[in-house]
């Protein structure tokens, strides 16, 4: 484990930015935080987390796939992808780090999504342990330890110091760039911090939320649960929950005719939308109840069924904070599942 004084943090950033494009959370004028590209003068945010999740780095909201021109009977296809450069996402929380694993299981299995894979390969994740979780946090429900975040490099921030620990080769390499600014350290301060944080974790309002009653094999049992009607009753069908969610991975592929050719691009889609997966015969899920149910069944039943029991929620709490009507996965889990 290495450490550096927080006073030197901007030097550290400058050093990293020499080798990589560096992104880190900065405060916005509306008191929210957002991952932005580091440049001289950027100030690392103290916020617990960003409104938009860091999934954007690997799975951006919109990305061009190819371009084609039709002339007469000829179709001219151009691969317009741009090679990624190595980049660092600094200060990713444990929950969000976990979300990458969930996305990987979608995009990196055969057939591998080469766009996603390329970004993943070039991205270096510097994770940050939590010290002051919010009331909306429930990562423990999904077995995530926010004091022990994964990633290429894990960091712990104390009052005065930043502790670093490389977990992967990519991480080692990154740390080597800031070698001169860091020094060896023991884990005492970090251990103390972990201890303190876990006390708070146990007191969180959602600390007792469990996945009992969900998971693989529960489809038939849960699908016709009467509570879906009530839960989905006032859902507006907007896509806020899906778009702030670090694990939602649905997208649509669309063509845009520029007048001088067609750009085929993909963009996020939301299962909450009435037009979602609309096909020639119409829509699969005709009511908001069905769409609402799909979202939670996917996260809590279908995904674990296909992915060795792994749930596709990381308890980051973004949807709890942002849903216009304050309906969310925690309420769904409590209503349909149970508490410890």
């Amino acid at each position, binding site marked *: 484990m290495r450490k550096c004084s927080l006073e030197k943090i901007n030097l550290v950033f400058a050093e990293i930015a020499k080798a990589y494009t560096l992104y880190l959370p900065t405060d916005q004028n509306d008191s929210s935080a957002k991952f932005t590209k580091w440049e001289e003068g950027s100030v690392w945010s103290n916020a617990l987390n960003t409104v938009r999740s860091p999934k954007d780095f690997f799975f951006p909201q919109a990305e061009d796939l190819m371009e084609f021109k039709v*002339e*007469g009977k000829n179709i001219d296809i151009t691969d317009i992808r741009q090679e990624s450069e190595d980049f660092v996402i600094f200060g990713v929380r444990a929950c969000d780090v976990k979300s990458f694993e969930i996305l990987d299981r979608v995009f990196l299995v055969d057939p591998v999504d080469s766009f996603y894979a390329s970004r993943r390969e070039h991205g270096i994740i510097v994770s940050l342990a939590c010290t002051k979780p919010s009331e909306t946090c429930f990562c423990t429900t999904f077995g995530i330890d926010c004091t022990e975040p994964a990633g290429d490099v894990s960091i712990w921030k104390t009052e005065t110091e930043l502790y670093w620990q490389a977990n992967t080769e990519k991480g080692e390499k990154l740390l080597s760039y800031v070698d001169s600014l860091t020094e060896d350290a023991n884990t005492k301060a970090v251990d103390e911090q972990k201890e303190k944080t876990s006390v708070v974790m146990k007191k969180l309002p959602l600390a007792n939320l469990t996945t009992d009653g969900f998971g693989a094999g529960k489809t038939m049992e849960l699908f016709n649960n009467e509570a879906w009607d009530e839960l989905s009753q006032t859902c507006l069908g907007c896509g806020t929950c899906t778009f702030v969610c670090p694990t939602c991975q649905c997208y649509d592929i669309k063509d845009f*005719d520029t*007048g*001088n050719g067609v750009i085929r691009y993909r963009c996020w889609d939301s299962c909450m939308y*009435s037009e979602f997966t609309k096909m020639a015969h119409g*829509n699969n899920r*005709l*009511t908001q109840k069905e769409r609402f149910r799909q979202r939670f069944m996917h996260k809590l039943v279908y995904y674990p069924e296909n992915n060795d029991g792994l749930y596709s929620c990381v308890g980051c709490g973004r949807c709890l904070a942002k849903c216009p009507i304050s309906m969310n996965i925690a309420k769904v889990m409590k209503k349909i599942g149970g508490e410890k």
Partner: protein
Amino acid sequence: MQRIGVFVCWCGSNIAGTVDVKAVAEALKSEPGVVYSTDYQYMCSQAGQDLIVQAVKDNNLTGLVICSCSPRMHEATFRKTAATAGLNPYMVEIANIREQCSWVHKEMPIGTEKAIILGKAAVAKVNLNTPLTPGESPVTKRALVIGGGIAGIQTALDIADAGFPVDIVETKPTIGGKMAQLDKTFPTLDCAACILTPKMVDVAQHEKIRIFSYSEVAEVKGFVGNFDVTIKKKARFVDETKCTGCGDCVDKCPMKKNPNEFNMGMDNRPAIYIPFAQAVPKVATIDAGACTMLKKGKCGLCSKVCGAGAIDYTQKDEFISEKYGAIVVATGFNVISMDKFDEYAYNQSKDVITSLEFERLTNAAGPTAGKLLRPSDGKHPHKIVFVQCVGSRCENCAEKGKEYCSKICCMYTAKHAMLTRDKYPDTDVTVFYIDVRTPGKNFDEFYRRAVEEFGVKYVKGMVGKIVPEGEVLKVQASDLINNKQMHIDADLVVLAAAIEPDKSARPLATMLTASMDTNDFFTEAHPKLRPVESPTAGVFLSGACQGPKDIPETVSQAGAAASKVIGLLCKDKLLGNPCIAGSNELMCNGCSSCERVCPYGAITYLDKEFRMPDRTTKIRRVASVNPAVCQGCGACTVACPSGAMDLRGFANDQIMAEVDAICK
């Protein structure tokens, strides 16, 4: 996918001089959907059209783009050509490469480049064209004329003479209107009654005309060719079919002191009355507000004296529904109220009267049996002052008068002045005016005669104040030409009060969805080219309801309106414009935005049952466009937020395709 043929016209050197037509034809060949492209010297010539027809046959074309002159020039021509070739005429688009290209640009490369772009836009549009067919609707061969004045009478007679049944709805107990109240008419000075009453009799006797007197239009539904109208026949407590108009009841009625409307309230009539001797229908009417039998159940004298047994105190308002193909509005005018013109002392002195009251004072059938006597004391007036433009041309006084010129006052004042001087040469007559407006056949001659032969004093200037003092009216006025103040002690003052549309016109316009101007005159479909039609199809305008008019003008407009009605009723079916709006019911919110902007009232709402996504059914309110009424302006398409409303022939996707093609 369309199979489009492109035809580039040279128009001799008109186009070819500035546009490389061959290059245009060549460039458009590779546009999507284009399978054939050629150029020719004169596309509109028979040979050119034959070339198009042949190309359609040879290449199985489904759409045509003609790059030529303005569509305003030859769109109709090429639509016919398309029809000849077996295509729907609306599968044609014109790229205007003459008026909007070759004629306004000088250099060949620039003109050619623009012509190609305009051609591409037309191709892009045709790709989205769909065959359009005009809608058909039947025509009810009956007309309704609202108002029984000279305008309504003339229109009804003309329509009826052409063989179509006509109903006249008149709110008063008799037809005849304002003209029946007049004494003589300018500029010929023939007696109004002498020329009007025969026409009234013609109406009464015409087998194709029905008169609904003492009646009002209660409701109008439907559209051109197919109006459903409900007429309210007010209870007159006299059975029209039995009453012979003998007048016995009128003589016997004890309630004699009711202001006589026909004589402008200058004398009285009984509670049961016939407005005037030549009334049509000549049937008595009981004034329910004045009759003690109806109010208190006491009297019943009229019933006793009526030999025909026509009196029916139990009569109720009756509602009659009828279908009409066309409606003519002839609601006429009224004199404005003088209540707000305190300066003229109208309400203070009986001897300040309006011109219409003057008409009755000089009419042989009027309250004074035609002798010009002062209303106050019955004496002969020796000094009369006429004031013109009372409430007319009144700038910035909307609450009092009218901004417009009432048009008829100059002439009738000249008439009054002249007749007074003619009959009573001892009377001094002064007319105060702003301008004397006498455009019209023999009008100026008439006015000059009043001045030159009859010695009427015309003073340019306005009357500032009239103060009744004892027996005289002190008139203060200014003489603008001699720049001096004038004081006249007049015996009688006649105000040429402005005229305004009848008050019934505004609610009627709402029922008809016919538009009105801010003065409540009906708006014509086009001020120059369609002056007797309302913008609402099937509604026509006759007489002063459209604007101030004298009798000859009214009669000509009445005839014109009649000829338009006859033209409409002659048709068995109406063919609509196929480029009209249509609502996609699945997307329509029923919010009424489109209805509110439709200038024609073409949009109505239906409650329709829809199958919802969750397999339930739901009743939803959706817009429905009446193809016979819609004129295709497209105002509704933009008012519609969901895009449910679209315009055929100028659809959203077509216009956007044109935009895209131009901006490529």
